[in-house]
């Protein structure tokens, strides 16, 4: 069955998979999804802590930030495993994104402490940077005061602080703000994957420490987006592959007209096509995880687009093949669909990513 077939010479990847499997056995993914959704929460603190303890949050951080200094292959395998187990905490946006952003900045003591806290799960640091449509939010730093509203913020209610990407004059600055800063207002809305997303408004909030600015910040942001997209792609690939497996099992056991559904040729061909989509998502992620440095950006665009299309298509078809059962909330397959929709819509839907790939290629 489809898996991202990475080389694993020293068995690090197998270890990561085992570790996540152990975690998933404790923290039942679908049950957590439903519990968090019912609570209107933005993450499940228990699962988040477990992820920290298993080292998943520190995975992309360098050693001097208390991290494991693991690379793209390890991140890919970790995210894939999360997808397969339907552990739906905001790993990509709340661990990978701020983690790789901090890791890519010119380091200093404060920044190292922040990142280390993030890796230990003690600091929860959503990045405020997107507007309601996912574009750069108009957050302004003027006379040491921050003003503006960021949207689509994961983990805002659980946050210990925020990383605010604002503009000062024409220059981007990154500021660390404590969650308790005065003039900061969080409004949460339910997300499709059972975690709330918030808009965070800043009204003349006294700016905390500036962590970085200018070109170095832009470069770090670009890197963080690419790495986060890779994690999202791998998670989507895991979701698609697992949803396929679940559907194969279901249809191979469900009997109609005296035969299993999976024995009908039309259903078999449908399942083969779903399997092919899962295979292609996995090989695209493999390619992105192992591409040479100069080709990573393009490879990641391709992988996120492919894995997003693949996971949403597979899970939609999986619902159909589950029949009436698939349309119920009690059946886990619907949760896979919802998670796939959410991740597919995070940091660029496929069409946008493909056009970015094409523009870069044709400009080259």
């Amino acid at each position, binding site marked *: 069955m489809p898996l991202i077939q990475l080389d694993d010479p020293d068995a690090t990847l197998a270890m990561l998979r085992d570790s996540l499997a152990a975690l998933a056995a404790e923290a039942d993914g679908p049950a957590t999804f439903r519990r968090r959704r019912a609570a209107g929460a933005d993450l499940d603190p228990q699962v988040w802590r477990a992820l920290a303890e298993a080292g998943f949050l520190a995975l992309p951080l360098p050693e001097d930030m208390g991290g494991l200094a693991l690379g793209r292959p390890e991140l890919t395998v970790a995210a894939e495993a999360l997808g397969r187990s339907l552990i739906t905490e905001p790993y990509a946006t709340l661990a990978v994104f701020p983690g790789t952003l901090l890791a890519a900045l010119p380091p200093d003591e404060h920044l190292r402490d922040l990142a280390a806290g993030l890796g230990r799960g003690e600091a929860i640091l959503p990045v405020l940077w997107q507007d309601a449509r996912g574009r750069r939010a108009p957050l302004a730093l003027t006379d040491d005061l921050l003003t503006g509203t960021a949207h689509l913020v994961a983990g805002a209610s659980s946050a210990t602080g925020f990383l605010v990407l604002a503009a000062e004059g024409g220059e981007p600055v990154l500021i660390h703000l404590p969650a308790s800063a005065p003039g900061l207002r969080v409004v949460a809305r339910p997300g499709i994957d059972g975690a709330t997303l918030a808009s965070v408004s800043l009204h003349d909030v006294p700016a905390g420490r500036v962590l970085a600015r200018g070109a170095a910040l832009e470069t770090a942001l670009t890197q963080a987006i690419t790495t986060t997209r890779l994690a999202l792609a791998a998670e989507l690939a895991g979701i698609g592959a697992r949803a396929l497996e679940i559907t194969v099992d279901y249809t191979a056991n469900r009997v109609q007209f005296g035969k299993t559904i999976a024995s009908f040729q039309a259903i078999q061909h449908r399942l083969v096509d779903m399997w092919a989509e899962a295979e292609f998502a996995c090989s695209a992620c493999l390619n992105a995880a192992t591409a040479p440095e100069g080709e990573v950006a393009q490879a990641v665009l391709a992988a996120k687009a492919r894995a997003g299309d693949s996971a949403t298509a597979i899970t939609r078809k999986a619902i159909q093949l589950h029949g*009436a059962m698939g349309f119920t909330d009690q059946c886990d397959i619907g949760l896979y669909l919802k998670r796939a929709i959410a991740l597919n819509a995070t940091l660029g*839907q496929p069409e946008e990513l493909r056009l970015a790939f094409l523009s870069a290629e044709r400009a080259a």
Partner: protein
Amino acid sequence: MLTQAMPEQQDWNALTDAEFRAIFRDWVDRTCPAHLRFMRKQRPVFDEVAEWYHALARKGWLSPVWPQEWGGMGLNAAKHIVYVEEWARLGCPRIPDHGIGLTGPLLIEFGTEEQKAHFLPRILSGEHVWCQGYSEPNAGSDLASLRTSAVRDGDEFVINGQKIWTTLAHCANWILLLARTDKEAAKPQNGITVLLVDLTSPGVVVRTIPNLREEADFCEVFFDNVRVPAKNVVGEVNAGWALAKAVLGHERIFLGAPSRPEYALKRLELLAEDRGAFGDAAFRSRYAKLRLDLYDLGSAFERFAKVLREGGTLGADVSVLKLFCTELYQRITEETLAVAGEEARFYDDLPLGDGGHVDAMNLFLDARAPAIFGGSNEIQRNILAKAVLGLPSR
């Protein structure tokens, strides 16, 4: 109970379609409450729409196809299509309609005079709210293999078993039940009986099944030694299969009526206008495809409606509407999520600049259902292969 004002009746079929349309639209538009128009919820429960239900009943317009002697409008298929089209155009809510659309017609065709006299007025008054007890956990598409049993015991039948996917059973008080009365029948289709069962009877337990939108459209209904008077059998014992299949008739055309995708495309258009998507030629191209698919669905619907209008009957080929319609509905809602972009991460409705909302996710999730229910699209294709194309099985 039956003290409504005298309904306004006449021979509707003697009017032209246009005349009937004008009369019907005018009254509905004046009468259906604004807050019930274009409801987000596909399947409101009885209490939410009771006001509109009773208004229709008072007018005598609740049951479009029942004969006038039983309080219906007696519409022929052509006029019925107008009725449904105007209903959709004006955004009237779906009412709990199993009594009107299923139990009523069944009793009118196969019921005893006593059954008709007792049950039909209670449907019109809203006293009896019906649900349909056909599917079972292992008899969904393959209904003939149902197992819920009804065993004769004196003047009663004793029911044991379980039904599932029973729409709105938790808001109903009667169920039209298919039960097995002969386990030894040569073919599984034989040995099935239709029974009218009071859901308030001892031994009945109803449990809701929340759907993908976390709404309780569906239920499971459990029967534990539930006693039903033998006079509540419809038609003959063991001959219920033909009855259950007989009712649908020309109404199969409505499974492919363009109203759902039409509504969804309107939402897509609103969102796209608000988000400026029409400025993107790639979106325009995809939108134009969906728009034309809807337009052509209208043409195809009209071709079948014409058959009915001219007094013909529909063949199995009418299912083509259901296939196209349900799959178009899905594609429209998928494009709506694409236009939503990053906002497709939200479960709730998307705000528009004018203060309105578009229920993108609600529609996307709802669109999963019609391709599954009412005979899944796979089953429809099997039927079409045999019945229309005459394809061999070997």
